């Protein structure tokens, strides 16, 4: 399987497209800046959110039990899933019990993480993603490339082609308004004919047993309100203690995500309407393991705004698919190794550790520091490149000895030979697009001995 570097290389074959992708996401980052800079207390708000989530993670089992009890009291059926497989089974069993073979889904990254669509299709259940971006990637048979903007990697002309093929829009039609209308008509019919709807959960309130879903298209409401069965899938870290905490998180979420003050719809679900069944599936899938990793625990504070992706200079120039995991970008790179260290060993290295991600994070996850720490864990656990290990040993040996360092330096600028950007090797990646500095006639150390000692 190709790793992040190889997939990025493919992505970078079309430089104009990289420029377009970079600028599109940079525009979103700028909108986020504009929105956040208008809130004088923005940094305090981030700190408050971070502390609330700290409390949640410190008392997670208590909050989960409280939430479960309140939800049950409200008439919601609560399920616990240890992993993706169990989650998928639970969803399927609910549908099976009702004899339902078609389901409408509002955007849920957790079901992407669990590969629910694929599983349900194998069981003969048809799933329609109702979020416009999700629908586009679903029709294109691709995973989302971004957690908030799932089809941000597609140009409108390409979306026009997909809609022409699957939804019958006119050939060559690329007007966003016309295409959106096409999707709308298609989805309207879907909403009306589906008896089951699955939504994600942005926030689950322990105090009240209710959950909040944030969308711009109202598709979660449309699906949930027209269905006989509403299933809400949530990771166990989505809890907040009290309803009033929403005042912190709703202000942060969308400003961080898209630069809007708030999503068009912040839908609160507390109890099923008469005649409806409402289910919540609480999913662990590695989260309690991550909770046990002290250095990486804070990654569970994530509210999935995607700000770290929009600001990441690497993400913008490599595209979400290069991360080969459901949640791409910096946050995905610190979450994925927890699930499978071998498969995702490349991701913590797909960063320059510039630190911009940690600065935009609305819950102040120390993302770039965790990337650094994951690198140490991955190497220690033996998932690093063996050739690199030998080079690193040689480098450490030389740099530990001033004498060897000096001799090596004199014998042809040791650093030139042994640093990653080595000289004299046409296959060296540094040389593909960059030149080396001119070698000076003497090092600073040599100059100093002549001029100062």
């Amino acid at each position, binding site marked *: 399987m190709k790793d992040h570097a190889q997939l990025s290389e493919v992505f970078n074959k079309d430089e104009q497209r*990289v420029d377009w992708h970079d600028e599109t996401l940079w525009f979103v980052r700028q909108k986020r800046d504009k929105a956040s800079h208008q809130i004088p207390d923005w*940094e305090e708000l981030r700190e408050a959110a971070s502390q609330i989530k700290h409390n949640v993670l410190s008392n997670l089992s208590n909050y989960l039990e409280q939430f479960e009890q309140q939800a049950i009291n409200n008439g919601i059926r609560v399920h616990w899933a240890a992993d993706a497989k169990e989650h998928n089974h639970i969803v399927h069993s609910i549908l099976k019990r009702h004899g339902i073979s078609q389901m409408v889904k509002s955007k849920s990254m957790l079901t992407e993480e669990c590969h629910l669509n694929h599983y349900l299709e194998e069981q003969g259940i048809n799933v329609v993603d109702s979020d416009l971006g999700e629908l586009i990637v679903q029709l294109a048979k691709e995973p989302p490339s971004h957690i908030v903007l799932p089809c941000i990697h597609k140009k409108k002309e390409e979306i026009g082609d997909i809609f022409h093929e699957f939804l019958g829009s006119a050939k060559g039609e690329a007007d966003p308004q016309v295409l959106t209308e096409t999707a709308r008509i298609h989805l309207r019919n879907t909403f009306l004919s589906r008896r089951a709807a699955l939504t994600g959960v942005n926030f689950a309130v322990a105090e009240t047993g209710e959950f909040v879903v944030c969308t711009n298209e109202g598709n979660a409401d449309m699906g949930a309100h027209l269905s006989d069965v509403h299933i809400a899938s949530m990771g166990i870290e989505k809890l907040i203690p009290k309803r009033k905490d929403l005042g912190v998180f709703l202000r942060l979420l969308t400003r961080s995500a898209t630069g809007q003050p708030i999503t068009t719809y912040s839908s609160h679900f507390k109890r099923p309407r008469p005649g409806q069944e409402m289910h919540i599936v609480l999913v662990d899938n590695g989260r309690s393991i991550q909770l046990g990793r002290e250095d990486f625990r804070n990654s569970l504070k994530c509210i999935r705004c995607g700000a770290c992706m929009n600001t990441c200079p690497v993400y913008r*120039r490599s595209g979400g698919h290069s991360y080969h995991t459901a949640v791409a970008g910096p946050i995905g790179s610190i979450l994925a190794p927890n699930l499978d260290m071998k498969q995702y060993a490349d991701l913590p290295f797909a960063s320059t550790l510039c630190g911009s991600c940690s*600065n935009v994070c609305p819950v102040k996850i120390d993302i770039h520091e965790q990337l650094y720490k994951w690198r140490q864990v991955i190497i220690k656990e033996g998932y690093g490149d063996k050739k690199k290990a030998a080079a*690193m040993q040689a480098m450490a040996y030389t*740099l530990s000895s001033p004498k060897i360092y000096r001799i090596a*330096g004199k014998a042809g600028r040791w650093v030139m030979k042994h640093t990653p950007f080595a000289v004299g090797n046409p296959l060296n990646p540094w040389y593909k697009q960059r030149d080396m500095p001119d*070698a*000076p006639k003497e090092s600073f150390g040599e100059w100093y001995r002549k001029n100062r000692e």
Partner: protein
Amino acid sequence: MRVGLFIPCYVDQFYPNAAIATLELLEKLGVTVGYPAQQTCCGQPMANSGYEHLTGGCNDLFVDNFAEFDYVVSPSGSCALHIKEHLHSHNNEEAATGIRKKIYELTEFLTDVLKVEKLDAKFPHRVGLHQSCHGQRGLKLAQMTELTASPFSKPGSLLGMVEGVELVPLNRADECCGFGGTFCVAEEAVSAKMGKDRVADHIQNGAEYITAADLSCLMHMEGILKRQKSGVKVIHIAEILNGVKETVA
């Protein structure tokens, strides 16, 4: 006040002029500077690649070399940050802790410790200031565009004291250049693209020189500029602050 001058390995080998400028500038400002001859590297190349456990030798050497000084100053924000965050020693943890607290990148040493308010230097050029990530976001040498907070720039304020410097505005004030240590070869495609984009921003805005408080970024951008046969040059900030000779161009 005795200052230990830490010249990182690649500066020692590739950019002695920046090191000489740093030394001369500190001496001009009345500082007694010592340069321990046995120094090599901060250990970051290994640590950032996941091999922090191999940096013990480098760390002990660093402690032996610099424990005696009141301050340690380096013309590299990235290396200074690495020492500040990761220097430990089995032999002498107390000395290592002391060094973590007394290491400074050059420009912050000038503004925060020496409290420099004027400089005798002239550099009549249009200059693009590259905010190196580790210096900026790690050492907080300048305000970060992500935050809702008052702007400031330590390297910027020092360049403002140099006669004739015209700082050019950039479209992206603090985007990474893509060097990233071993990232520059392990992720060649993205790294080089980031470098090209960063350089283009400076060129579009009319910079004749790109300066920074970190030579690793400058080396990366110089690599791109040379390949493009561009007339734009890179220069370490110490050389500008020290009053670089007019013949450089």
